[in-house]
Every structure is written in structure tokens, then in C-alpha cells.
């Protein structure tokens, strides 16, 4: 039996300018997230999955990746991760606008797979993709010690799915360069982690697969970056997968159609949410003199501008032509489907 090595946070503390950059990103994310909820109320978006409270986890984990060659596998709640990865936000929001399921962005360009609605659906893809990076190295005669690495997002709820187990086991067997990044935000819709995760911790599952794991404060962006860096370093160097469990809190509703009042009180939320990841970072940067009040105001103004530009683009986003339904089913379209497209045009567009 292999003993799972312990994973220690990366030793290098983050320099001030990197923390400012993270603060800037997280502020943008918070702005956009808060706005998207408002957009839903205003009828701009039919629905949205808020991620308030998870900014540090999402922005910090993507920060630890090399976005030029790694690949990110999100769920449906990773707006912050997408923004940190540079994904075009109106194209990302296209999923929530019901313009195109998965988003309009080019997954290969941003190295960020489409939004996934199937809980745990993408974990095995990341393992397959990561295995492909190993095979590439072998085919090209490179040593397997500097591998492009996959970042897999999953929730505490997702950890219950069989696919997560299969992904962890496959990754362990094939020594795949992947990082399982668990945002343990305390809830899967109305079900709290205690009723979800037997044993209480997803990180604790690692040992059973011989996978090193680290559990960290998901509201502390520096802890997230350093923990994830350590995990990525392990995976990238060919030693196999790693698990990061970022303890955080879903401060908002599950989605804009959820009513959390049915299963938790405001008191619960106040007690369990922990530190606000953005406010605490701001306070720290103000306290140590890295930022002053003006700089904070400027960063917030920048976020507001970004939000406004995004809103305009999302509002301007028209529906896709129905013909695309037929176009993207296959790379090689079938005759049968062409005929259906023709019938659709005749009957629906009266062409």
C-alpha cells in the first residue's frame, strides 16, 4: 500500500502586487455576481447560479494554474474561475441567458471546458485529458516531469457521485496530472455537508487512493493560491493527482430560483459563512499599506465599469439562429439531419 504523502502549502508567500491583482479580480467577480442576480430580477437573464463567498476559492485556484497550457474543468457555478481564466464574460453568461447551453466561448481558446450541468460529469474528462498530456510527453520523448495539468472543480455535493470516485481511482492508477479542487461550501442546494459527506471531509478521501490532499481556508485567497500551487506542483511533476479541499460558504441561494429560508436561517448564515474573502483581503491590504482608500475606490470603479460593459453586451446578445441546432450535432452532418433542417426552415421560418 502506498502511503499518501502529505501536501504542504507552497512555501513562497504571495508578493503584494499579486495580492492586489487578486483583489482586483475578486472585486470584479463580486460585482458581476451581484449584478447577475439583479439581471435575473430585471429579466435580463432567465436564471443564474450565484457564487458569492467563493471568490477566493475560484480566483485563487485558477491563479495557481498556467492558463497557457493547463486546462480548467468547471461546474455551473464557476463564474469567478472563468473570469480569472480570462473567459469572455458575455460569452460565459450566454448559458445563463439561455443563448447556448455551455456558453458561447471557445473552450479551446480559453482552455476552459463548457459549463457543465451534470454534477461530477467533467471530473473524468479532466482525468482523460490529463492522461493525454502524459501520452503526449511519451510520444514526443519528453520526460513526464513538467506536465500540463487539469484543474477539476467539484462541490461537496458532487463528491457523492460515483464518477468522482472513478475519477480519483483512475487518476491514482494512471498518475494523472490533475488537481481535484473541492469547493466545500457547506451546502448542496438544501443538504448540508454533514448529511452529504460521510466522514466529514473530501480531502480525507485522498489517503484511500494514495492521493495527497490539503484542506485549507477557502475564504483566504493566499491560502488557496499556495495550497493549489503545491497541488499543481505535485501533479505537474508527474507524481500523480492531488486534492485540495477549500472550506468556504455558499453565501447566496443555490440559484436565483432557490429559497434558502426553507432550510437555513440568517443566523445560520452569519454563524457559518466565515470571513468575507474580499473584505478580509481588502482590510489586510489597507492595514499593511499596500492599498489606500483611493486605490480601493478606483478598483471598485473599475469593477463597476466592467460590470456595465458586460451588462450591455449581455443585453445585446440576441438568440442564436435555429439553424445552429442542426449544424453542431456532428462534425459530419447526416443527410437525415439536413432534411430535418430543411423541414424546420420551411415550417418555422416559412422559407
Amino acid at each position, binding site marked *: 500500500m502506498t502511503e499518501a504523502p502529505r501536501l504542504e502549502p507552497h512555501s513562497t508567500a504571495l508578493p503584494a502586487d499579486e495580492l492586489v491583482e487578486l483583489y482586483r479580480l475578486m472585486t470584479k467577480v463580486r460585482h458581476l455576481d451581484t449584478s447577475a442576480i439583479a439581471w435575473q430580477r430585471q429579466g435580463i437573464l*432567465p*436564471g443564474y447560479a450565484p457564487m458569492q463567498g467563493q471568490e477566493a476559492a475560484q480566483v485563487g485556484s485558477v491563479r495557481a494554474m498556467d492558463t497557457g497550457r493547463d486546462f480548467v474543468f468547471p461546474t*455551473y457555478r464557476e463564474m469567478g474561475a472563468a473570469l480569472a481564466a480570462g473567459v469572455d464574460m458575455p460569452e460565459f453568461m450566454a*448559458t445563463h*441567458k*439561455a*443563448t*447556448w*447551453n*455551455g456558453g458561447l466561448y471557445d473552450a479551446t481558446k480559453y482552455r476552459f471546458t463548457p459549463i457543465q*450541468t*451534470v*454534477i461530477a460529469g467533467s471530473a473524468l474528462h479532466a482525468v482523460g485529458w490529463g492522461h493525454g498530456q502524459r501520452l503526449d510527453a511519451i510520444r514526443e520523448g519528453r520526460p513526464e516531469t513538467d506536465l500540463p495539468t487539469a484543474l477539476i472543480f467539484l462541490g461537496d*455535493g*458532487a463528491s*457523492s*457521485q*460515483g*464518477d468522482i470516485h472513478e475519477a480519483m481511482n483512475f487518476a491514482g492508477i494512471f498518475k494523472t496530472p490533475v488537481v481535484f479542487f473541492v469547493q466545500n461550501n457547506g451546502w*448542496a*442546494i*438544501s*443538504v448540508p455537508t454533514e*448529511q*452529504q*459527506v*460521510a466522514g466529514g471531509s473530501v480531502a480525507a478521501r485522498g489517503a484511500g487512493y494514495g492521493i495527497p490532499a490539503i484542506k485549507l481556508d477557502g475564504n483566504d485567497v493566499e491560502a488557496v493560491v499556495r495550497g493549489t500551487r503545491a497541488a499543481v506542483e505535485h501533479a505537474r511533476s508527474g507524481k500523480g493527482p492531488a486534492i485540495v479541499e477549500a472550506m468556504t460558504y455558499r453565501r447566496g441561494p443555490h440559484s436565483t*430560483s*432557490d429559497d434558502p429560508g*426553507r*432550510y437555513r436561517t440568517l443566523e445560520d448564515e452569519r454563524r457559518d459563512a466565515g470571513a468575507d474573502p474580499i473584505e478580509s483581503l481588502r482590510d489586510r491590504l489597507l492595514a499593511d499599506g499596500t492599498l489606500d482608500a483611493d486605490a480601493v475606490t478606483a478598483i471598485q470603479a473599475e469593477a463597476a465599469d466592467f460590470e456595465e460593459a458586460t451588462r450591455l453586451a449581455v443585453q445585446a446578445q440576441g*438568440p*442564436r439562429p*435555429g439553424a*445552429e*441546432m*442542426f449544424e453542431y*450535432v456532428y462534425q459530419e452532418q447526416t443527410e*437525415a*439531419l439536413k432534411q*430535418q*433542417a430543411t423541414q*424546420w426552415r420551411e*415550417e*418555422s421560418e416559412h422559407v
Partner: protein
Amino acid sequence: MSNLSATIEPTGHAAPASEDAMDTVTRTGSETLSMNKAINAALADVLAENPRALVLGEDVGQLGGVFRITDGLQKRFGAERVFDTPLAESGILGMSVGLAMAGYHPIPEVQFDGFTYPAINQIVTQMARMNFRTRGALPMPITLRIPSFGGIQSPELHSESLEYIFAHVAGLKVVSPSSPHQAYHLMRHAATRPDPVVFMEPKSRYWQKDTVDFDDPGTLEGSVVVRPGRHLTLVAWGGMVARCLQVAELAAEDGIDVEVLDLRWLKPIDAAGLAASVSKTRRAVVVHEAPRSAGLGAEVAQTITEACFGTLKAPVERVTGFDVPFPSGSLEAEYLPNIDRILYGIQRVLEYQRG
């Protein structure tokens, strides 16, 4: 107006749980209810009558389900009988199989149609076959609830039509109600059967109100003609029944008298009911949301053709979803059979000339 006997009045307390004796549930008269409320009432009655009936699934407890179908049931019947599971559909179905083995009647919910796929193995290889495998020793009285079909512009994989699988699998029975009345009575019926029944709830109809007559369930087996007509039979189920009724109204303005048949049971299919209707109208169009190829419409059409070949005036027409993945909300109206497309289908049948 509904008169509930005292025994099923919500009390906020768990029902006495220590005896197998059945409470008698008597709802009398009639009431205007939305379909989600009607199913909720049926589940409450089933739980009250059968102390071995259980409700389980993701978020069915305190939340009452994302569609509130199980609203209030945990409060009333206790967290032992109405309980949340971890987030794993294979787990939910596999656990239900085991609970059935222990003598319970589980009523699992899969939160949305598209998330039934992780449970297909347990449904097809276990739930559907256990009675056969054990030669009847371990029956599977399981009522699997699935909020189904499209029509409410949901995210990806929240709008699927899974009858293509269920209707083929030996050992399953499959039903889909199209109205609150049907929903109430079919649920009470399904949840007291000794065999596994997949209960496909048309999400798009959840909030539509209509009269539920508690005194007269009507027939519970087979299809029902929900609008009689002479010129052509429209066959549909779930959310498409209402749309076909609209189409029939429009067609009537042009003097076309359309019969609408609500298939209801998707397994077994009511071949006699189909034959009776189409041998009268001599023309049929089947409408469904699922893609056309190898969809249940083919079975319906072929069943009709086998019975009515000699008298059919035209081949049975299919108006269905296209052979594409169910698209995003903004394209839903392009994908689903709409009134125009159904009318075109009717026209093709009426104008058919033997070639």
C-alpha cells in the same frame, strides 16, 4: 370543494409510525388544484395509507423538492419516511431497490429528467429485473418520480424525454399525467402497485390549475380520449396534450374535427385505445417532444398501422423534436413541436394522396 378526513389534516407532527395498520384516506368532492399540488396531495395520501411508503431523493425533505412536490411531507410524516439522500442518483435507485427488498414501497425522486442517466444501470439491470430474476420472490414496488420534458426554458439536461428508454425496458411500467386530476389519481394508483412504475411529471404543467374530482378517478389504465373528434386523431402525452388541445381548437375553426388521445401509459401502450380511435378517424398524427428517430412516436405509429392498415387514409404522421440535443431556452420554441408544426402535420395527413 374538498373535504379531508381528520386523519390526513396536516398537523405539523409526524404521523404515528409504529403500526402497519392503514389510515383510511377519504378525500371527497372536487377541488381546483395545480398539478404540483395534486401530486403532493396524492403523495400525502399514499404516505398516510401505507406506513411502508417512503419518499426519498435529493432535497425532497426540508426543502420539499425543487418543484415543491414533496412540500410539507417531511414535517408531517417525519424524517424517517421522507428523507434527503446524498447527491447520487444511482445511490437513490439502488437504495430504493434494497428498501423494496426490505418490504418498503419507496417513492424516489430524480430531481430532473437528465439526471436519471447516472441511475440507468440500477433502473434497467436491477429495479426492472429483480422480480424476474427472483421468480417473483423479491418484487419491486417502487414508484420513480421524474420531473420530465421541456417547455420551461430550463438549463441543459433539465428538459429531457426519457420514455425512449423506459418504454422499451421489460419489467417497467411508465405513465405520464397531463392534468391535475390525472396526476392525483395516477399517482395514487401507481404508488400502490407491486411493480415498478416510472412516473413522468410534465414540468411545464406543474403550475396549471384544473379541477380534481376525488370521487371519480375515471379509468386508470390505458389511454383516454380528452377531446372526441371525427377527422383525425392527435396522439400525445405529458405537456404535449395541452398543446394538441389548442391545435384542435384552431383546426375546428377550419372545420377539421380533431380527436385528441392522451396516451398516458407509455408502457404498456394502449393498442386497443389507439385502434379504437383511429379506426374511427382513419388518420393520425403523433406528437412528442423527444427527437424523432427511434422515439416513442415510431412505436405509436406502428401500433396504429398494425391495427388499422386496411382503413388508414394516410401514413401516421410524426411531429416531434428534431434529432438534435435539446437546445438552450432561447431555442426551445424552435425545437419543440409548436402549433404551426402540428398543423402542418395535420395538413399533410389530410392532403395525403396515395402515390
